């Protein structure tokens, strides 16, 4: 029988987080640029270019400008992207090419702590990107405060959810090129069909039901409500969705990576 030590997670996962933060600080000037410029590009393209065609949009019974409609969605999309890409490409490079995890496994860190640290780091990148984007978007007066500040902890929760999925996929991916597949099947459809650039109600009914299963749909709803200063009971459902999502995918990711790393 193979003897395994039982699952071990302690505060030590923070050491893994710190390692990633140390590397991030080496290149922080470059890492800052995308979340700073991206919303500007989008707001320019959609706000100036497209909104002339689209005009105002019906959202929860109110007429709102198209820019106001998509700005919170941009934040939600970035929460998804940052965590997902960090825990797929980023983690894969560390695991497979740099053998960073192997080196860590010669120290008192456990595999569970390594993976937890990686996922929390991915979520941290979501939070950093969110804060920068919010600063830019706020300049246009598109976020209402103080409710909008709740988007920051939401970014952490959303980051853990998408990071866990990413980490799970990393645990079963043999080659870095293969990440194209989940991106094509999972990330891109969400980017387009989660009520990001047009209201979900514009979709056929069956597609609306499908969209209700997608995590980004719920995240977009939450960022949109918070940006408009709304605090509604329905938001608890979306929060509950994310909690359940994390409770399923986080252990699944840890388990998969455990199987992958322990040889």
């Amino acid at each position, binding site marked *: 029988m*193979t003897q395994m030590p039982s699952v071990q997670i302690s505060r030590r996962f923070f*050491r893994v987080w710190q390692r990633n933060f140390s590397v991030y600080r080496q290149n922080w000037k470059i890492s800052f640029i995308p979340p700073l410029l991206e919303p500007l590009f989008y707001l320019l393209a959609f706000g100036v270019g497209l909104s002339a065609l689209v005009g105002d949009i019906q959202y929860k019974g109110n007429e709102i400008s198209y820019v106001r409609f998509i700005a919170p969605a941009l934040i939600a999309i970035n929460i998804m992207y940052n965590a997902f890409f960090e825990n797929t490409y980023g983690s894969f490079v560390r695991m497979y090419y740099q053998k960073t995890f192997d080196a860590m496994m*010669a120290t008192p860190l456990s595999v569970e702590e390594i993976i937890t640290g990686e996922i929390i780091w991915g979520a941290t990148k979501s939070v950093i990107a969110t804060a920068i984007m919010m600063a830019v978007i706020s300049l246009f007066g598109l976020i209402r405060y103080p409710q909008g500040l709740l988007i920051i902890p939401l970014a952490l929760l959303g980051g853990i959810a998408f990071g866990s999925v990413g980490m799970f996929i990393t645990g079963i991916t043999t080659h870095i090129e293969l990440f194209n597949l989940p991106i094509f099947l999972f990330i891109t459809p969400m980017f387009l069909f989660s009520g990001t650039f047009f209201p979900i109600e514009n979709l056929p009914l069956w597609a609306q039901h499908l969209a209700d299963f997608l995590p980004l749909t719920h995240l977009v709803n939450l960022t949109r409500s918070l940006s408009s200063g709304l605090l509604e009971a329905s938001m608890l459902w979306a929060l509950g969705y994310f909690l359940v999502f994390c409770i399923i995918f986080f252990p699944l990711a840890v388990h998969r990576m455990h199987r992958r790393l322990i040889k």
Partner: protein
Amino acid sequence: MKNVIEAKHLRKIFGDFVAVDDISFEVLPGECFGILGPNGAGKTSTIRMLYGFSPMTGGILKVFGLPMPGCFRAVKARTGVCQQENNLDPDLTVIQNLEVFARYFDIPKAPAREKAENLLKFMALDHRREAKAIELSGGMKRRLVLARALINEPELLILDEPTTGLDPQSRHQVWDRLEALRGKGLSILLTTHYMDEASRLCDRLMIMDHGRVLVQGRPVDLIRKYAGHDIIEIVEPADVLKAHVRTQNLEYEDLGHRLIIYIHESGDRLYHEISDRYCTEGCIMRMATLEDVFLRLTGRELRE
């Protein structure tokens, strides 16, 4: 005093492939113990079980008297490991690599910095302190990995091919440092493909092949027992010589283009006889080495 490592009937199976097949050995406090073996012999697989990287398939293992893998945290905290591959953080500087590693052991910032500076001096890397790890030469990378393995002031140092790919100068420097560490009472377990390294550093060693231990002992004893005292090597031996050797009740290996004779006492008399009567050149006599033992026991065919 207790054994630092006590391994009994260790086994490691990948799927249906037996990588480590029932091996037992001890490492005593303060000694340098070597594991030799051809590619794929199971050295790395063995070592990984020792420091809790991979779970054992079977057997009993105690490190510092603590049962593994149950006590993996306590054991790892007191062990320094230099893995076969250089897995430094390429984006971090030399000093940062050490400091980040120190955090994994919960060493506070100030002592970590001090230890890191000392280790850089010890490994003659202080002049490259601020260089990115990716910019270092192969030899410097290896020395940095070694320095990193010492950051937690381990009682046991586990080294998987510490000098592979190093130039002679770097190898000698690493040997010096390892001898200094052993002088301070550190126990060392190392694998190597260099027989001169094993002879110089190891108090005791074992030779593995196909996941099993072939022999175990002190290098000199192994040489005396399995290769003798002197070796006579003849290149392109004449048939008459081969015929002569066959009649002489000698230990020899006939490799076709090369004939190797193992002599347990002094080889002077036989050497003169052979060189006078059978060959004027291409015939040498030398001391038996660990390499002779290794090749004799594990064969001369290529692995993998």
